[in-house]
C-alpha cells in the first residue's frame, strides 16, 4: 500500500472526479463529462466505477463489489483486491455491512440504507446512443428534452414483439427532466432506482461520463399508458434458497437440457440459506 497514493489515484485526479460527482448530484440524471484516467485494468472492466469509488472512499469505509450480483466472479474479486491493496479498506460480501458498494449490472436485493453509496459501472452512459450515434446531436436532444426517439424505439418493440422487449438498461426519466441509462441492470431492478435511501453514482470510464442520483430521487421507467412498465424476472423460485422475490440466473446443469434458477445476488441467497431456507435443488 505504501507504494501508492491512498486509493491509487493522485489527488488532482480525485478532485476533478469529486467536482464532477457534485455537479452530477446537483443535476440528477445529467451526464457530467470528466477526464477519465487510464486504470490498471482494461476498459469494460469497470474503470469508471473504480475511479468513482477511488474518489469517494475513506480509510474507514467497508467496501463490497458485485458483478451481476455475485461477490466471487473475476471482476468483483479483482476490484475488491485492488482497493484492499491500494486503499487498505476493509472489504465484505455482506450488503448490510458495506458503506460503499461497487456494482456491475445489479442492485442488491436487500434494500440499501442511508449512509451507503452504490457505485455503478457503466459501459454506455448515453441512453440515446444506439438511436443517434453523434454526441453533438444527443447532447442537443438532452438540452431540448427531445426524447421522442426513445418512445419510438419502445413503440417499435411493441409493434414487433407485442410488448416492450427491452429487458435490461431500460431507460428511465429522472425528476421529470433527464432520460438516463441506469446501466445494464435488468429492468427487474428499475423500481429500486427511485426513492432509494442510498446515494447512487454512475461512472463510465471509456465514455468519460459521471452521473448521479441523490437519495429519494424520482425515477420513472419510460412506458405507455396501454403498455405500462413491468419489472420482470424468470417465473421460478430460487433453486438454492427458494426465494420468489429475487432476480434469478438460469444455469445449464447438464447436456440434456437440465437447468436450474438461482438468485443472482449471492449474498442474499447465502444469507437466506444460512437462515434455513431451502430450494428444491439445494443439496
Amino acid at each position, binding site marked *: 500500500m505504501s507504494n501508492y*497514493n*491512498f*486509493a491509487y489515484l493522485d*489527488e*488532482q485526479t*480525485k*478532485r*476533478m472526479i*469529486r*467536482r*464532477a*460527482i*457534485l*455537479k*452530477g*448530484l*446537483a*443535476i*440528477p440524471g*445529467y451526464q*457530467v*463529462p470528466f477526464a477519465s484516467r487510464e486504470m490498471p485494468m482494461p476498459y469494460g472492466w469497470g474503470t469508471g466505477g473504480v475511479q468513482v469509488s477511488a*474518489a*469517494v*472512499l*475513506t*480509510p474507514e469505509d467497508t467496501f463490497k463489489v458485485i458483478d451481476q450480483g455475485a461477490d466471487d466472479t473475476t471482476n468483483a474479486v479483482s476490484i475488491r483486491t485492488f482497493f484492499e491493496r491500494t486503499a487498505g479498506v476493509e472489504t465484505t460480501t455482506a450488503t448490510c455491512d458495506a458503506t460503499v458498494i461497487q456494482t456491475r449490472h445489479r442492485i442488491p436485493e436487500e434494500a440499501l440504507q442511508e449512509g451507503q453509496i452504490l457505485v455503478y459501472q457503466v459501459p454506455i452512459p448515453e441512453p440515446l446512443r444506439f438511436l443517434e450515434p453523434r454526441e453533438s446531436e444527443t*447532447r*442537443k436532444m*438532452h*438540452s*431540448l428534452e427531445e426524447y421522442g426517439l426513445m418512445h419510438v424505439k419502445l413503440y417499435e418493440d411493441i409493434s414487433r414483439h407485442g410488448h416492450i422487449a427491452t429487458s435490461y438498461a431500460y431507460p428511465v426519466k429522472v*425528476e421529470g*427532466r*433527464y432520460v438516463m441509462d441506469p446501466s445494464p441492470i435488468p429492468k427487474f431492478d428499475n423500481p429500486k432506482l427511485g426513492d432509494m435511501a442510498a*446515494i447512487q453514482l454512475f461512472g463510465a470510464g471509456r465514455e468519460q461520463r459521471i452521473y*448521479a*442520483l*441523490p*437519495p*429519494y*430521487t*424520482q425515477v420513472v421507467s419510460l412506458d405507455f399508458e396501454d403498455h405500462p412498465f413491468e419489472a420482470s424476472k424468470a417465473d421460478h423460485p430460487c433453486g438454492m434458497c427458494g426465494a420468489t422475490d429475487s432476480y434469478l440466473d438460469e444455469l445449464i446443469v447438464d447436456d440434456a437440457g437440465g437447468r436450474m434458477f438461482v438468485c443472482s445476488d449471492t449474498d442474499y441467497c447465502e444469507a437466506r440459506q444460512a437462515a434455513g431456507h431451502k430450494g428444491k435443488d439445494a443439496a
Partner: protein
Amino acid sequence: MQAAPLSGGFANTATQSAHAFRSVMEAMARPGTIQDIEGASPPAPLSPAAGAVLLTLCDTETPVYLAGEMDCDAVRSWLSFHTGAPFVGPAQCMFAVGIWDALGPLSIYPIGTSEYPDRSTTLIVDSAGLSASGAKLKGPGIKDYAALFLPELEAFQANNLLFPLGLDFIFTKGSELAALPRSTQISRLDSKAGAQVGAS
C-alpha cells in the same frame, strides 16, 4: 490572527480530503443536512469549513472568485500556496467564496449552458447561519421535507426555476457545512395553512 500562508493546510491530504469530500457530498446529496468538516486552519476571514471545502475541490484548474472582504492578502496567499487556484472575476469563476452580502447579485455568475449545465459556479457562502429552520426544502435528496436557514428566499427560488441550469451553494460556518443544489425547491417554512403557497 493570521496564520502564515504555509500552514493550515491538510496534514495528510489524501485521507483528510477524502473525509472532507464525503461531508460535502453528503451535504449536496441531502440538502438541508448539516455536516461536520475539519482539517483546515485558514486565515481569517475564511472559516475552517470554507477552507476545507476549497482545499478539497480547488486546484490550478478551478478559477476562484474571492468576494468582498475575502479578497485580502492573507486569503490570497494561503489559497495560492495550498491550491494554486487562479483568481478571477465572478463571470469566469468555478467557485466563489464570500459572505452572502458580498456575493450578490447572483446574475453575475455563470449558470451553465443548456448543453453543459455543469459549467456553472458553486458558491461557498461563508459565515452562514447554519440551522435546520427557516426555509422549507423539497426535491431530490430529501425524503419528504427538510428545513434550512437561508439568508433570503427569492434568490434561491429564482435559481431553482433555472433548473437544469443554475448555481449550487455550499453554506459554511465554523467547522460545519450544508448545501443547496439548484434542484431544490424552496418555500417559506410556516406552520400556518399557507405554508406551501410560496413553493416554486
